[in-house]
């Protein structure tokens, strides 16, 4: 009886419906790449980068739309190019002037957004391009799945290759600068990877889901681990767990899927915030008996 109920609650949705299986595969593929990338972004204090990127890609998407109409491939590719241009320019300005990273990024993404809005209105169309470009987790076709899986594979390979310099870049960029000239290129490659993961996530799953599944699990992981490796594992597992919980909840309750998945990561974040062994609120508020003894 209990087994039957469990089967119906947890397994049956995926057994019966192809779109649920696709959603599961897509969100797990995204989690695998977004988990580690999110942790590095959090450590680099770039947690709000994803939201900026969602706007920065507009001119690329608009030019893709002008060239080949409402073609998802062209618009995604255009968005990717625009996103990469914005981070590269912002990165160059940050490295070579007194301007800090957040300010230079804000400058470039705002220019990019304004340019995009202008290009769209030149065409005289009122279709909300970003609305069209941003996908839904319930409508993953083969192309979207391959895109997600391909991007995740690239991301993980590059991360593995750049692991050491990236850690140094995050923790002590001045030291890295003094011993090696790899800092600049490492940072730029990392930014390009972030843009790829984000834009792929946008066009397959939508902005909220792509950014949320990247940043919330990373923030949660901070409360469970102090070592980078541990944080990456916790973030990835949290992201996957939240995806599964969100999908099943949305299936049974009828609430919209993307937001529910992010709310699930939000709940896990709240639990971590309260109970996490490293800086969780409960441990801070509780009297430190062992010290008094």
């Amino acid at each position: 009886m209990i087994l039957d109920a469990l089967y119906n609650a947890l397994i049956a949705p995926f057994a019966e419906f192809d779109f649920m299986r696709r959603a599961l595969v897509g969100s797990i593929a995204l989690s695998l790449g977004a988990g580690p990338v999110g942790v590095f972004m959090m450590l680099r204090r770039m947690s709000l980068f994803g939201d900026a990127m969602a706007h920065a890609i507009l001119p690329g998407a608009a030019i893709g739309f002008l060239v080949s109409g409402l073609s998802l491939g062209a618009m995604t590719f255009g968005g990717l190019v625009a996103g990469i241009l914005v981070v590269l320019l912002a990165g160059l300005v940050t490295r070579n002037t007194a301007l800090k990273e957040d300010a230079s990024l804000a400058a470039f993404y705002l220019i990019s957004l304004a340019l995009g809005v202008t290009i769209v209105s030149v065409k005289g169309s009122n279709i909300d391009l970003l609305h069209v470009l941003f996908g839904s987790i319930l409508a993953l076709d083969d192309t979207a799945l391959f895109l997600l899986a391909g991007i995740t594979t690239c991301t993980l390979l590059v991360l593995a290759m750049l692991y050491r310099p990236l850690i140094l870049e995050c923790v002590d960029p001045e030291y890295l600068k003094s011993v090696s000239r790899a800092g600049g290129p490492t940072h730029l490659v990392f930014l390009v990877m972030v843009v790829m993961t984000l834009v792929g996530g946008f066009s397959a799953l939508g902005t909220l889901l792509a950014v949320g599944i990247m940043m919330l699990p990373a923030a949660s992981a901070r409360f469970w681990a102090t070592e980078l490796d541990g944080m990456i594992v916790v973030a990835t597992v949290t992201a996957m767990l939240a995806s599964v919980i969100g999908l099943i909840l949305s299936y049974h309750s009828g609430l919209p899927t993307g937001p529910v998945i992010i709310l699930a990561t939000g709940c896990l974040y709240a639990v971590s915030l309260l109970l996490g062994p490293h800086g969780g609120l409960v441990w801070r508020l509780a009297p430190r008996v062992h010290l008094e003894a």
Partner: protein
Amino acid sequence: MHYVLCFVAALIVSAPPGESRAAEKFKAVASFSILADLVKQVGGEHVDVTAIVGPDGDAHVFQPSPLDAKAVADAGIVVVNGLGLEGWVARLIQSSGTKAPVVVASHGVRPLEGEGEDTGKVDPHAWQSIANAKIYVANIRDGLISADPADRADFEAKAKAYLARLDQLETEVKAAIASIPPKNRRIITTHDAFGYFGRAYGMSFIAPQGVSTETEPSAKDVATIIRQVKAQHVPAVFLENISDDRLMQQIARETGAKIGDKLYSDALPGKGAATYIDMMHNNIAAFVKALQQ
């Protein structure tokens, strides 16, 4: 082509000095393309019509620009659909400071309530029933007459002729539906735009998006539709010109239903079916082609 003819006609009429009537052509603004066509049909050469949401645009989610406000401010008459379709239009009219009379084209239509999640919300797509379109035309005629009484006789004659064409169209639609076997009179569309059509001509429609394109479907909604399509052997799914079609393609893949020709529900297309009557012809042709077996 029509514009060119109007322009030439305007030149000819305005050529003799003293005859300045054509130069001060009466300006009408309609909220979206289908209404604009109806106004054009009744107003003929006396009225210069602009649509705020142009062809292939989505009137549910629209951001007006200053040019739109200017068009409304300069208008001699403003025609809106009402029934909650254009939530943005009341603010636009108010902020433009226009003195023009506002005609609510759906005035007098018996509103239909949305089904399922949309219970309690009014379905705004009244023009999909030709009987309602006739009410629209009558409202537009009366509005034009009170705004421009000098051309009364012409407006009345044009409206009378157009109403006769709509009667003929309705006969054609009924004949077309009659040629579809009753068990096949069921289809799926992206957003719930055909409630009035279904009620008037005896077809049932299922849509994942509800009556507005703004809502995001849940996994439960999609699962319900897929079950329904499989259980009732719904023969075809249709895509619209204003909605994201990835979700529908997933539903078609999963159920084996075929994808019919594109439907026009809330906007006339940029090219092809350029008038209300063309749009209805296009839609019934698509229904017949996919369902008549």
